[in-house]
């Protein structure tokens, strides 16, 4: 099932913003409105997985847009063929995939646009939209069967 470790904690980054990040005076804001993406030395960052990186509060990785969503995609690993179509098409890099193995959805950054569902080629689809408050087990237990093509 989905690797929940890949999901960042709820409201990450938000505490920093509320602590006055956005309320600095003109003498304290960064030169040229340039913002560091990582905390500390980021050498070798390219070889680290996202969850291992020390993203700064300025990085969009540390902000969540989960509350923007009305409906959410649910991923069914039993049907998925790891074609990576959803990973390619997702406009918010919210498809979690490792070594071409589909792992799940980054619900911190998914805005519920449904593009992943649209581009999923399997039958039945491996991604379907559900109401935001639908729990995972219920969603998966009612997954549709394969639909047969009607012959004329």
């Amino acid at each position, binding site marked *: 099932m989905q690797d929940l470790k890949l999901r960042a904690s709820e409201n990450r980054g938000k505490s920093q913003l509320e602590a006055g990040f956005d309320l600095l005076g003109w003498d304290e804001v960064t030169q040229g409105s340039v913002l560091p993406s990582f905390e500390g030395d980021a050498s070798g960052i390219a070889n680290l997985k996202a969850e291992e990186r020390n993203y700064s509060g300025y990085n969009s990785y540390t902000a969540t*847009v989960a*509350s*923007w*969503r*009305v409906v959410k995609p649910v991923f069914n690993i039993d049907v998925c063929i790891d074609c990576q179509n959803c990973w390619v098409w997702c406009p918010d890099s919210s498809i979690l995939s490792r070594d071409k193995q589909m792992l799940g959805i980054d619900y911190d950054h998914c*805005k519920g646009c449904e593009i992943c569902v649209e581009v999923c080629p399997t039958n039945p689809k491996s991604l379907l939209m559900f109401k935001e408050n639908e729990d995972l087990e219920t969603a998966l237990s009612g997954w549709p069967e394969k639909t047969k093509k009607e012959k004329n």
Partner: protein
Amino acid sequence: MTEIRWHSRAGQGAVSGAKGLGDVVATTGKEVQAFALYGSAKRGAALRAYNRISDEQIFNHAKFMHPDFVLVIDPALAFTDNIEVNEKPETKYIITTSLSKEELIAGIPALAGKEDRVYVVDCVQISLDTIKRSMPNAPMLGAFVKISGMFELDYFLENMKRVLKKFPQKIIDANMEAITRAYNEVK
């Protein structure tokens, strides 16, 4: 001068709601202003919309206001946005929620002790029942008409029909039903 602040998410229709309200108010001969704080806001992002209503031309263009009414059309924003910011002792709150007034106030410390000026109505459910999608702006207008006492319901409905005239009859009827239901259900 009556000042109103809407708390909403982009896409829920607060801007249209504020403009629609302004449109109807203007027919009574009053001067109105309807504006919002948005621009690069994406669908789903929190936003605030504003109305000013006056007997005379409105010159104040500041966003800053001490609202007479705070209209919250997203259930979650009642908890996460500072809906009480710049309030005054007589500010009235109309909040979209599926909770009872007591449950809501229990969850929002800023509303404690303001029972007599907090009103609740489930605009999301009303819009799902009538308009068939989550469009809580129209029901909120119905609740506002009731609480503010600014218009007779029938007068408001007649004028809203004119504001919505570019839409198909089915949508106009659904909006009228949504406004009427919220008018009757707000408490």
